[in-house]
């Protein structure tokens, strides 16, 4: 065992010095290789982090959202639906929600307006997300005027800004009191936008949803799990599309690696000839070449992965942002929570290191079987 390890150590030692002797060639290969890993890793890290973020966000949302449909479109839901639902077994809490969108021509963007829920906001004050604050140049204490449905203007004082930790969701959010909401949007008492129900046991959610559709045939329940599932597939699908697009560059890289490994210079040919003449066997030369591939692969993987990590989590993935997360005027500025897992690493490995290894096996063998006398002549 010790003999084996020592042998590998000498081989690695030799490989390193031989790689350093051919600096330009090795560095060129390393740069291209790292670039490939960098691109793939950026896509993976970014979409995984987004997926994770979406999951965390939805964790706090209610299990079931109930919307009333009118001619296939979402309509306001009357308050007495809450009574009609009555006591459903397993439902912990149910309440009506008021929310909507407000188009602000000044910044050409939509705000999401919600009512403050339990903590009652005073009638004339609002809380806004940092995205709106940035777009309008507002701060705590300033006034924001909204035009209501029938043309009246309402001024609200900004009492607070929403925490920028939640900016991914709250950038365009505006919170006001239910009363003010009804005044601005001209919604009579007795109507809600939708209802939310929380269910304690996750296994009962589907049963509760079934009962709801029987009880209130003009409504549709939206389950949190469904939303999560959709996010999950959409993000991995987008990631997959980017991977398919990157296949071209992976193939180019494979050809490049093949070419590098087979197009040996006269110098290298001589080197292998001399090694064989001093007693190296074919298997030794192949082992040496194996270590060469490993050293380059691992270095490139490390460099590319670390660069991608910095790109995604410190520079907000500026290169791929629009494709993976969509875009909007009031776009949130946020920093993603780093999220790394084994599946991700393994997938990346299969997309970068495996093609390299496969591409170099045959060229390596070809150089290793060369006869010393034929090469040195």
């Amino acid at each position, binding site marked *: 065992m010790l003999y084996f390890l020592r042998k590998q150590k000498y081989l690695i030692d030799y490989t390193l010095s031989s790689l350093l002797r051919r600096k330009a060639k090795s560095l060129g290969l390393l740069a291209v290789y790292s670039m490939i890993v960098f691109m793939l890793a950026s896509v*993976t890290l970014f979409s995984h982090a987004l997926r994770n973020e979406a*999951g965390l966000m939805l964790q706090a949302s209610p299990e079931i959202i109930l919307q009333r449909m009118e001619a296939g479109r979402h309509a306001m839901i009357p308050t007495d639906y809450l009574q009609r639902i009555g006591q459903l077994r397993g439902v912990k809490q149910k309440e009506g929600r008021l929310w909507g969108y407000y188009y602000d021509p000044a910044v050409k963007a939509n705000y999401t307006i919600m009512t403050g829920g339990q903590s009652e906001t005073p009638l004339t004050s609002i809380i806004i997300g940092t995205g709106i604050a940035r777009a309008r140049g507002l701060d705590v204490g300033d006034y924001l005027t909204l035009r209501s449905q029938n043309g009246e203007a309402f001024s609200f004082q900004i009492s607070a800004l929403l925490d920028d930790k939640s900016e991914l969701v709250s950038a365009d959010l505006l919170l006001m009191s239910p009363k003010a909401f009804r005044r601005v949007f001209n919604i009579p008492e007795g109507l809600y936008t939708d209802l939310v129900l929380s269910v304690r046991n996750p296994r009962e959610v589907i049963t509760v949803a079934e009962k709801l559709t029987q009880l209130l045939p003009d409504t549709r329940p939206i389950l949190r*799990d469904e939303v*999560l*599932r959709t996010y*999950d*597939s959409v993000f*991995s*699908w987008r*990631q*997959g*599309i980017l*991977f*398919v697009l990157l296949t071209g560059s992976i193939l180019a890289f494979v050809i490049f690696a093949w070419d590098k490994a087979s197009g040996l210079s006269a110098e290298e040919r001589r080197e292998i000839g001399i090694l064989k003449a001093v007693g190296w066997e*074919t*298997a030794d030369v*192949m082992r040496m070449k194996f270590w060469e591939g490993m050293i380059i692969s691992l270095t490139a993987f490390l460099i590319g992965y670390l660069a991608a990590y910095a790109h995604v989590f410190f520079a907000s993935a500026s290169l791929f942002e629009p494709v993976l997360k969509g875009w909007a005027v009031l776009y949130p500025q946020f920093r993603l929570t780093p999220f790394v*897992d*084994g*599946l991700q690493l*393994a*997938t990346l*490995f*299969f*997309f970068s290191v*495996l093609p390299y*290894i*496969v591409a170099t*096996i*045959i060229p*390596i*063998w070809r150089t*290793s*079987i060369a006869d010393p006398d034929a090469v040195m002549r």
Partner: protein
Amino acid sequence: MMLLNPAIMALVMVSAVVCLMMLLASGFAVRVLLRWDINSGSERQLRLERRTYLISTLLIWAFSFQLMSLMLFIYNAESMSGQFVGAMCATGVLNVNAWGWPTLFLKMGVFFSGTVWIALNYLDNQGYDYPLIRYKYLLLLAVLPLAVTEFILQLLYFTNMDPDVITSCCGTLFSSQSEGVAAEISGLPPSSMSLGFAFTGVMVISSGVWVALRGRNGWLFALLSGIAFIVALMSIVSFISLYIYEHPHHHCPFCILKSGHDYVGYILYVPLFIATALALSVGAVSPWRGISSLTPTIESIVPRLSWIAVLFFALFYLVATWSVWTSHLTMMEVWW
């Protein structure tokens, strides 16, 4: 649409590459079986001898990729559980259609045949006259259909994934009330199962020690390790997992890989797989003692491999016993 998931693309790609490498090697294998003549000095024989280096490198890589793809396959099933109604862990995802479980078993089969092939190949390379070359390429030709079937089944599995199908989670699949192989296994009486588990454990370890000391009868160790492997997997489903989850009806073999159970699954499965692979290799290596060019190698590696295998088996049985011992679940009155 499922095919656009990156991990699935990687899995399909790996299987395709492995198949391609093995096809290439099999073409060579046929030529070796027909034309190999170590005593000839002809050009053709020389070419064949040179090509063996390429083919063994190709195959060593192919089998290593296969091992990684086995792990990726399980990881991926685990991570996709969020995308199917009713799936809560890998079990549900494997159960989405009929191809999931067969793919997993075939991947395991290819992995074990791969390790045996690598052991034979190593041994063969130690003899100056390549005494085993025909056998090892015959073995390769036998493994090839497994790998190709695995590729096809995996492709069928991934292309037929329908996110709208309600699959069953581990709770319903592994319950003694339902039907099917999984339910049969979890319905096995835990009292006799645990006796069988202990019995095969003692048998396999003592046969391993015997082979390690005496250096012969490797086939016995290999045979017992195969039996012990199957009994161990069945025991994990039948009673070990219950103790890990501390829940009298939760039989899932995958949830023990999760963080909630201290990743104890890895400390169970990794030693079990390594030990079984090594023991099978011992079985494949030891019958060739009679060939004079191999005798010294076999005499040195059979005990060494056996000791390592025994060590890993012991680790597996210790961890399994320990997780039953320290569990808060008591089934004393129920099962006995």
